[in-house]
């Protein structure tokens, strides 16, 4: 079995495949060996930055990428990755500058427009984000990156219960893709359909059981979908509007019953008070019990 490899390209490929499979520890072993003989190889350093980002060390990843870009200012992969990291970290001003400089250099690359749209979305410039993503889609109708950005815009902007055409298209094209599923879960949560959101979140947790984000989401949705939370369904489904309606309904009911001199007025007051206390006290208690 021959594992001696002559070129950094072979190593890069192996390391990249290991990272695709989230085997960062094994990738780092190969990487450190390769970097001993080729310490300035841009592709190897890029893989190192990938490994750091996977281990949630964006700072080290960005530092490595800056190193690559300092030596090779035109390196597309390093710049694109840096743009993604800057966006994720919320450093939106440098992210915008980088996106614009890349678009100036590569005006025919639709994904760069979509990436810029992502920056704008993060900066809460919704109209511009959507326009950029749609521009990317116009340039390349098959661009799933552009579709994702548009789907994100839809989740944020569309009224409750409105379908997102972009999300539907993503689901049709990539039904098992985890990113698509996570968008669907977000959309379901926004629309108040927590039962379906829980099903989707469970699917995501099954595919990556050690992901703390999905674990906490499933735990939170499990609490909300517990049978003892059923009386709180209107509040979960309709949000603050339901709170206002319930408050107003309670006031009217107590007032009307009071005017009729009905003993039910007192009962109604106690029921309403009990419901309010239950809505505040029970969910955290249930969460502690379910997550013990």
């Amino acid at each position, binding site marked *: 079995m021959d594992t001696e490899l002559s070129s950094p390209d072979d190593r890069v490929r192996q390391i990249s495949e290991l990272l695709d499979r989230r085997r960062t520890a094994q990738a780092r072993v190969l990487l450190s060996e390769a970097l001993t003989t080729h310490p300035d190889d841009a592709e190897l350093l890029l893989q190192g930055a990938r490994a750091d980002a996977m281990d949630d060390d964006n700072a080290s990843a960005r530092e490595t990428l800056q190193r690559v870009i300092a030596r090779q200012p035109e390196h597309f992969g390093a710049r694109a990755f840096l743009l993604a990291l800057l966006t994720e970290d919320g450093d*939106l*001003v440098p992210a915008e500058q980088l996106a614009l400089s890349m678009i100036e250099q590569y005006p025919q690359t*639709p994904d760069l427009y979509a990436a810029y749209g992502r920056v704008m979305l993060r900066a809460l410039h919704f109209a511009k984000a959507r326009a950029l993503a749609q*521009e990317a889609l116009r340039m390349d109708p098959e661009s799933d990156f552009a579709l994702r950005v548009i789907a994100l815009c839809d989740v944020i902007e569309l009224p409750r219960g409105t379908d997102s055409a972009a999300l539907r298209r993503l689901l049709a094209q990539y039904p098992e893709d985890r990113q698509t599923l996570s968008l669907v879960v977000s959309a379901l949560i926004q629309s108040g359909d927590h039962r379906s959101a829980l099903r989707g979140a469970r699917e995501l947790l099954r595919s990556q059981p050690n992901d703390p984000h999905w674990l906490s989401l499933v735990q939170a949705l499990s609490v909300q979908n517990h049978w003892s939370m059923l009386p709180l369904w209107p509040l979960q489904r309709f949000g603050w509007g339901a709170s206002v309606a319930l408050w107003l309904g309670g006031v009217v009911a107590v007032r009307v019953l009071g005017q009729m001199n009905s003993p039910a007025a007192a009962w109604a007051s106690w029921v309403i008070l009990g419901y309010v206390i239950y809505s505040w006290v029970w969910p955290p208690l249930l969460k502690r019990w379910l997550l013990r």
Partner: protein
Amino acid sequence: MTTPLNPDLLRPSLSDTGQLAAAPYTSQTGFFSAFFGGPFASAAMLLLNAQRLGRLQRDAVWALVIAVAFAAWLVFAYTTPAGHELQARMTEWVGGRSMALAERLMALAAFGVNAALHRREQRSADLFGLKRPNGWIAGIALIVFGFAATVGLTMALT
């Protein structure tokens, strides 16, 4: 592939760090400020969030409308004969706390305006997991401010 048609899309929007939007206070903070603090608190919350989101220019008008509308209502209710008559009718229908009930309804309507104006920003903050500012201090401060402003104006008018 063709070149983009709209060159405005490629003008920088974030050239100054001060223009970056920060996460707004949560809807829960907004709701309870309005519920307990009244329309003035709700207007102040709208301004606070607008300032954080960089939407002050757009939303200040709405905050002003809310504050002026509520002040106008108080002036009408406490200083005009028609207002006194309306108060009497409301007391008849609803009972002794009719003005407080009306104030709360208006505050919740103001919260509705708040929620509608910042719906997308609130959703984005949830979606991107942005760190929200602590609502307790601001909420309590707004409730105290709203209550004091309402009581102060009412006392000045009566």
